[in-house]
């Protein structure tokens, strides 16, 4: 019996090593990487990010995290991704309508929170970016954000022996390319899953809403949930919610991408997860407080040819309803995510 065990384990060991080696040729894959899966919280729709094209490893995630917090991705070294995407604000910019960029400039849109990106097919308020891997190139090259060029970033990163070691480990050799840099950033960002708020605990049967939260949830389901669809709290569609066009920015939203007047003033529906820590609100941060948002839907909607039909009768919200809604929205704050050391600046 013992002999049989030895032989059988040998056979299986040989087979396993054959299996591992068989695909190592030419693929540049590193057998020593620790691969990870994107968490799939109960009830979430299927993940949109194509992991097969960019398998996520602990090492790749750590490289992405290092890049996310590295000022060298910007022209003067002052603006890492994390300068506009702060963890304690669910990776939005805390208390800023517009963020600060290179050479004392402002951005022209409010920085969105970064979480659950693996479920998004298009990035930006106007959906202009068709793949998460392409996303970092926009802020890096925008003159009023990080103000850098891609070749200059690749050179700065490639000149750093520590980075070269990271690239070697993750990608099989130390070459620093656009594709590798952005894929590493994606590996970090797709793992940023926010699904541990009180709301999620309640859904999982591990906690319960208090009476106010419960009443707020009922109002939410009745008045907000068709666009801010659970469990992502966005339907990921582009809609005109009746905001008058900003007089100086003249931001037409989705129309800037499609060129179609039917898309004028449409913006991607933002997730309400972590909404209480991501103020100011709207694509241009024009509302500093959630009460301004309620008032907008209650009475401020401006009707035009593309205003969403769901808002035809506005959204009447009494003072009591507003209070209860706020109690519910607070349950969407994911404190565990916003303080998770895995997503914090590397030491």
């Amino acid at each position, binding site marked *: 019996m013992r002999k*049989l065990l030895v032989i*059988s384990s040998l056979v299986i060991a040989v087979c396993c090593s054959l299996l591992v080696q*068989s695909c190592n040729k030419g693929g540049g894959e590193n057998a020593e990487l620790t691969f990870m899966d994107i968490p799939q919280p109960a009830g979430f729709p299927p993940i949109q990010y194509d992991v097969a094209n960019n398998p996520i490893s602990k090492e790749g995630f750590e490289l992405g995290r290092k890049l996310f917090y590295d000022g060298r991705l910007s022209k003067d070294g002052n603006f890492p991704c994390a300068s506009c995407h702060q963890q304690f604000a669910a990776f939005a910019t805390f208390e800023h309508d517009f963020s600060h960029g290179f050479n004392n400039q402002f951005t022209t849109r409010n920085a969105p929170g970064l979480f659950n990106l693996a479920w998004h097919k298009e990035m930006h308020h106007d959906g202009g970016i068709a793949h998460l891997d*392409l996303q970092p190139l926009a802020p890096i090259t925008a003159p009023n954000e990080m103000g850098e060029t891609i070749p200059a970033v690749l050179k700065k990163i490639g000149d750093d022996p520590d980075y070269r070691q990271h690239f070697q480990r993750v990608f099989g050799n130390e070459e620093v*390319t*656009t*594709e590798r840099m952005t894929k590493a950033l994606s590996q970090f960002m797709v793992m940023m899953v926010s699904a541990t708020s009180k709301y999620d605990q309640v859904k999982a049967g591990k906690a319960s809403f208090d009476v106010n939260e419960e009443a707020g949830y009922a109002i939410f389901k009745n008045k907000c949930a068709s666009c801010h669809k659970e469990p992502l709290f966005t339907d990921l569609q582009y809609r005109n919610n009746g905001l008058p066009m900003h007089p100086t920015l003249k931001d037409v939203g989705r129309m800037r991408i499609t060129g179609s007047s039917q898309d004028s003033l449409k913006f991607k529906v933002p997730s309400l997860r972590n909404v209480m820590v991501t103020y100011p609100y709207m694509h241009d941060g024009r509302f500093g407080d959630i009460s301004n948002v309620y008032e907008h839907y209650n009475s401020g909607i401006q009707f035009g040819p593309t205003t969403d039909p769901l808002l035809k009768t506005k959204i009447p919200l009494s003072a009591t309803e507003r209070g209860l809604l706020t109690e519910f929205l607070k349950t969407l704050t994911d404190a565990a995510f916003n303080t998770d050391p895995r997503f914090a600046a590397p030491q």
Partner: protein
Amino acid sequence: MPRPLTYLTPRSILLTAVGLILLALTACQKQLNFESGQTSPGGKIRLIFFPTFNGSPVLPGLSYTNIAGEPFSIQVFKLYVGKIRGNGNQPAEADGEPYYLLDLAKPSSLQIDATLKTGTYNGLAFLVGVDSARNVSGVQSGALDPANGMFWTWNTGYIYAKLEGNSPVSNQINGKFEYHIGGFRTPFNAIREAKLSFTQPSTITIKEDGLTTIYLRMDLAKWFDGPYPLRIANLPVVTTPGAEAASIAGNYVNMFSITQIEQE
């Protein structure tokens, strides 16, 4: 002696081993298929592009006059071509890089070497631009690396062609004009295919181990002169996808002509 656990019976061990070997083999299947695709017999083809303007070679800084009589000089001219194909009874796509970036400032970029399946062809076709799948499927490398500056970061997509220069008729600072043409979304898709028939001779045969050199003229006069008459004075700047970009792409796709074919 206790009864051996069922999963340790010789039969289950054998099954596991066979299963793992099968798995190992299928894991490699994809790779094998990929390699076999490259072993079909083919001959070398070489495309050499000559940027010209109404017959004279284009050089950065020299002055030209378009059909509307607007004088201008060219500082930058870059263009993606790809998916090169031999046409005929049995059309075949050339092996090699899927895309090439032609750049007036880099003479070496104006020559493309690829391999085409052996056979007889009556023409040549290639995309001028980048197919829509590659526009949206993440970061590409090689000629399509966004670091080459032919990519819009804020509105995902490749710039298929760039023509920049100066003209006294432009109302912009320093008389600049800038055409950055791209776009893959309907209705402003600017991806075009150039289709060229062989004329003298009307067919060519690609032989294994042979080299066929095709000389192509790119007449930049066609950038302005075509179905969409482009005037620098009226429209000196196009740097986003849209109706203008799609129309200009419909002009410049006509700039290619075959001037000579050599076979050895």
